[in-house]
């Protein structure tokens, strides 16, 4: 389907694969994966594509130029201290 994306997302619980509408917001993808992978809901995560954090999370997937099957990482938010 041209209106959908297949996302393969590496997460702290393993690899998640799912199909989402291109118009799905990043924050909704994160929420869906956190629930599916039984990650702690109190933790904060970024969705990352090829080293780039997809933000702001209110933007839809399609606005980042993603298409087809996309390889992503769901990483715990943080920075060096």
């Amino acid at each position, binding site marked *: 389907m041209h209106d959908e994306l297949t996302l*393969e997302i*590496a*997460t*702290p*619980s*393993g*690899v998640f694969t799912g199909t989402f509408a291109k118009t799905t917001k990043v924050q909704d993808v994160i929420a869906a994966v956190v629930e599916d992978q039984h*990650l*702690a809901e109190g*933790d*904060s*995560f970024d969705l*990352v594509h*090829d*080293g*780039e954090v997809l933000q702001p999370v209110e933007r839809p997937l399609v606005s980042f130029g993603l298409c087809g099957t996309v*390889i992503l*990482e*769901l*990483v*715990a*938010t*943080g*920075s*060096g*201290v």
Partner: protein
Amino acid sequence: MTTVAELTIEEEIKPLKHIALRRGWHLELFTAVTFEIGLPARDGTRFWLYCDCERYPSVPPAWHWYNAESKAVDQLKDIPCGGAFFHNSGVICAPWNRLAYRSEDARGPHSDWTIGDWRSNPYTGGCRNLAAMALRIAVELKAATYKGRTG
């Protein structure tokens, strides 16, 4: 007798193996509590880490930068710079790295953290298992802030 560290690694290595398989990362266990992992960087090169999980999870793993050929650890040419976690002392600066603690390693930037509290340190965030830590390192190596090798 099987240790807590061995049991924990046995469980936590499963998702990391799954990710490594799908991403083409090299992952090899040396012992029940030590392994090497090779991660691709933004410039097409690969960085290696030697992870020592002795006493884990009471204390965090020691993530050493590593040379897979010579087996040497913590050599400048094998250490990345830039990124949000790559401290100029040569260690990954995060509560989930044992080497970040001055009490464990002279290069450790932090004498203000208590190593036994690493899971509850606010800077740990969701990096509480091996896959989460490896993913964080992998993302930093791919980030625009990555600046190549230290030496």
